[in-house]
């Protein structure tokens, strides 16, 4: 990310901002989708985040931190989108577990992960995605999200614990129903 381009955008240069959008929108969208697990919601979050990033850009002091800063705005846009959508309707599409063909265990694991992930709070999802998908260490996650490092750690711990518990419960149900393990 060229700080000079960020500076130009900060000064109101929309062309420069479009350049930045071209550089960050793919990664922002990928993160949004993985937090929200729904295409429409991720698209809305990305759109709102890009607009907010433009609006708030004059407030960014350190041009070199544009990417992390835009990630923070994106995560907050995900929070807002999550709440907005939950406010109106549950739009969760549960995927039926696959049968017993070869490779079904892998697919079933992914389905269980998908279903379990939808049951954990969105702030925990964000930390989980930033850590395991983006690859940020906890200290950087804390900086990115503007939260204490201890909070980032506890959210990741809670997310991991919840996911493992939910997946274990799902696997147990599958066994009880006589499905292949």
């Amino acid at each position: 990310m060229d700080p000079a381009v960020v500076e130009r955008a900060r000064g109101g240069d929309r062309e420069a901002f479009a350049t930045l959008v071209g550089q960050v929108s793919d990664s922002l969208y990928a993160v949004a989708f993985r937090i929200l697990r729904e295409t429409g919601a991720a698209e809305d979050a990305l759109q709102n985040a890009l607009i907010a990033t433009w609006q708030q850009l004059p407030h960014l002091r350190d041009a070199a931190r544009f990417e992390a800063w835009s990630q923070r705005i994106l995560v907050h846009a995900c929070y807002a989108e999550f709440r907005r959508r939950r406010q109106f309707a549950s739009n969760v599409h549960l995927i039926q577990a696959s049968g017993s063909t070869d490779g079904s265990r892998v697919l079933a694991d992914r389905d269980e992960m998908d279903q379990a992930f939808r049951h954990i709070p969105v702030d925990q999802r964000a930390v989980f995605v930033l850590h395991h998908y983006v690859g940020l260490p906890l200290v950087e996650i804390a900086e990115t999200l503007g939260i204490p490092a201890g909070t980032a750690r506890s959210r990741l711990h809670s997310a991991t614990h919840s996911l493992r518990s939910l997946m274990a419960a799902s696997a147990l149900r599958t066994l009880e129903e006589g499905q292949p393990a």
Partner: protein
Amino acid sequence: MSDDPIFERNARAWLDLGPSTAPKRVVDAALRTIASTPQKRDLRGPWRFPHLTLNTRFAVAAAVALAVVAAGALIWRSPQSQIGNPSPSPTSSPSQGPISLQSLQSTWASVGPRPDAYGTGNVQAMTIDEAGLRISSYKVDVTSAALIVNATGKLLLDLTLRQDYLDGDRWECATGDMGTYDATLSPDGQTLTLSSTDDSCALRQGILVGDWTRWDCPPQYDYAYCDHASELAPGRYVAPLFRPFHNGTTGQLAYTLPAGWADLSQPPTWPDFGVASQMSLTRLDAPDTRAINIFANLHPNNPAALPDGPDLACHSATGPFAAAAQAADFLESQPFLSVSGRTAVGIGGLTGVQIDVSVASGIVDPCSWETDGAGQNTYSTNINIFQNAINEPVIYLDSAGGAVAHLILLDGPGAHLVIEVSASDQPSLEAQLGYAMPVIESFEFISDQSPSPTAVISPSAVSATDLQGTWTSVGTRPIPDAPDQVTVFTIGANYLDIHQWDGDVRSSWTLIDAPINRIWVHGPLATVPVAPRWDCFGIGEYDVSLSTDGATLTWTSIDEDCSQREAILAGDWTRDVAAEPSPK
């Protein structure tokens, strides 16, 4: 983090599934919205941050005020809008020795008025940093590269902002215009004086020449610009930016301050709609909250606040404010609010009602919550009772803290004014009113027949009130991708509902000041379950015109992000006089 490497590996493999490329249409839509969206440079946030509790707000205000009082060198008595004898300019004896660009790096607040390209005297700050010199103009930061010429010690400026942005901000200058300035610093480094006899950009020269006061931001502000509470000399003032009437575009407010008060909208703030439509006066040394907030064009909000408990559902609706009494009636009708002391009042030439409002303990806002690690929702105790013209929450009461507000609701020309004095409890409010009421009673609302220069409104311009009502389609209006039609839409005080068979789609709207009869519609805000066919969001810009009898409304699309909305709104509509204007 995990002690289960298999789980981590599986988690990462699962996360790797899914899209990694943003849809182009989504990015394009965002950029289209951005093309008509200004950046936010008004940093009054810490004073009006909507999610702060009253107590937190007071604490922030107190901390900043204390910092200002303690930092005596930063206290600046603005002469720019005082009626009568202005206080003297800060001392500006030039410093000796060579000046460096580094010594000039700061945000600088204008000493005295500085006419901008619009002629409204709104340039209030400029910044010199490693990137150069930026003048905070109306629409953009006007940037110049800066250099101190070693041989002469002069400040050399090269206008770097793109030509289309200069043109858009009415700067009759050219990219690359050069200017040479003498820059002198006062011995204490607090006052910068610029003089010039050579600048190809006359507007830049007109703005820069003269005195500037150093205006470094306190450490807690991570902003390019920041607010300071600046103590004003006792006397009578006219608010430099606040426009009380016609949606924050016309009129002025004069007031008299005793010693120890400040106008929080003093420089360096950004002269956008927010500043023009609200202002705050504060008493710097008061022991408790001390702000008087004055807002133009608010409307009461009903957040359907409820006692905390299970199964809270979020439904909100706006209330009417056709007249001050009507707004007071609305607040009185809300079961969660306690409204007392209602009396007729006359302030500054306007009439209205004053009331004291508090919210019952244990009441929460079911539309605002946080989810904890156990999946439990904690609902906000900040109850929003007034919103602005674009549906932003403005006035809150904290049900947990016993907060109380003294509200004065006034009827003005094309405006609904609210004067708010809030406190954390009743005794604090009474103490505060002791300070605030003499200032409020000194208010004089000045109605100018000629609109402000940035708000050209011809006699034939439609008003927001003209548009409100229920409108019936002239001709058929198919709903895109649906076997049905839209026959009716409703325009409320600040919302626009398109009525569909399966639910309404709500957008917010606002009339913009120029050109006349231009309207922005924003959203959809999705107040009801929105069908997938409404997969759009953004700003629509339309021209609206009314027939002379007010019965026919015509929408002409200028630019619209949401094609579904455009397909429905564009064209003619007739007023449905039998329908209620606010069906919500």
